């Protein structure tokens, strides 16, 4: 039986793992290659690098990070942040990433999803989505780190993304992100019901039981968190043990 995946995410800026508090007061918390290796030891099912390097020239640094990590860590690696063109996708995969995550650029240019899937295969195209509620059970899609409302209905967008050839969706709720009160179950459920590709829950994990909660209340395939794991409040192993004790199949 397919296991539910637990995915730690590392925010990387200029080659260093950072953790921001509301986009201000970003602090460095370590070397990404070492952090990835530690998550691998803890039993992470995949590792996500999210590149928040501001300048385009700085992008080469994340590729070095991926290259070094891919020599030491033998679980799937996903890279997101700043991927805008087919060439960006190619470069990132060639550096050793197994998947890329495209977000704002996919909203601005949906053809990027189709081109990426046609050339490299759906399996390596993950579409990251930031969304926020506008009414009960109605959400719209945001870009640029949750700052710009594109006024696109979330459910319309996820169906379109699937049809364009995305292999997976990473769904981040702006409403629950940073609040640490658990994943956005209604949003997650609505998206999982609308598509037949895997959906990763993101945004809101604050305590041990939140992961199992997402798996028990929705059919999401994976759950992702950053700060909880960064600050060693929880290990991937603890999260899996909790899931296992509640009858959820994990590796």
């Amino acid at each position: 039986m397919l296991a539910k995946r637990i995915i730690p995410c590392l925010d990387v800026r200029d080659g260093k793992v950072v953790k921001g508090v509301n986009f201000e007061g970003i602090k460095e918390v370590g070397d990404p290659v070492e952090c990835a290796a530690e998550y691998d030891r803890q039993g992470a099912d995949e590792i996500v690098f999210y590149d928040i390097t501001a300048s385009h020239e700085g992008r080469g640094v994340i590729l070095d990070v991926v290259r070094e990590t891919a020599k030491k860590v033998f679980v799937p690696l996903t890279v997101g942040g700043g991927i805008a063109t087919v060439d960006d996708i190619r470069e990132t995969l060639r550096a050793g990433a197994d998947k890329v995550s495209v977000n704002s650029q996919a909203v601005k240019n949906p053809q990027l999803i189709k081109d990426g899937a046609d050339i490299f295969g759906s399996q390596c195209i993950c579409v990251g989505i930031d969304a926020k509620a506008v009414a009960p059970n109605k959400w719209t899609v945001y870009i640029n780190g949750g700052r710009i409302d594109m006024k696109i209905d979330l459910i319309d967008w996820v169906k379109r993304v699937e049809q364009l050839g995305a292999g997976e969706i990473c769904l981040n709720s702006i409403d629950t992100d940073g609040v640490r009160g658990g994943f956005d179950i209604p949003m997650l459920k609505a998206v999982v019901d609308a598509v037949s590709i895997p959906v990763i829950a993101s945004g809101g994990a604050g305590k041990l039981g939140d992961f199992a909660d997402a798996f028990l209340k929705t059919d999401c395939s994976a759950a992702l968190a950053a700060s909880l794991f960064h600050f060693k409040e929880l290990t991937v192993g603890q999260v899996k043990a909790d899931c296992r004790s509640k009858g959820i199949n994990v590796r």
Partner: protein
Amino acid sequence: MIAIIDYGAGNIFSVKNALDHLGIDNKLTSDKAELESADSLILPGVGAFPAAMEMLRKSGLVDTIKEQAKIKPLLGICLGMQLLLERSYEFGECEGLGLIKGYVDRIDEPGLVIPHMGWNKLNFRQSCPLFNGLDESYVYFVHSYKAFCSDSSSLFADCEYGSSVAAVIGDGKKVFGCQFHPEKSGETGLTMLRNFASLA
């Protein structure tokens, strides 16, 4: 030396990284003479079956691979495994290498999330040298099509996803294929690659 066949398809660097990490001599190559002098061969691949088969044909390596597979170990990974079968129905019918009897078709069951993506648990169906030192553990899959082997003797391991999904197959001699990615399946996958290398 293991030759990793570089015909333009797939994330070949991951396979190389894993073999380098294990200290196993290897080379990415599309050179016929190098495939002939190698101790064993790995056929990687991701993407679509017809496109990969077309690239393989253009590389002029189809006959070499078929000949070499009779005399040295060959491991197909993911799409590389699917190419070992006789044919696929991905985007219409397409002929494969025909080294293992059977075909490839879409995973098609109602209510199932596709692609089959993530870690699934192997069930060993027969003894296989690739399993030396291993228990039935989890390995990483990502695919939307699966293999249907004509002979049950070709199936070494499967996993459950809706129904049975062929995970490790072979011709009973020197040809092996795994649907999952051993190079991305942690220690279990690395052990299988080490076991494969030791067959040469």
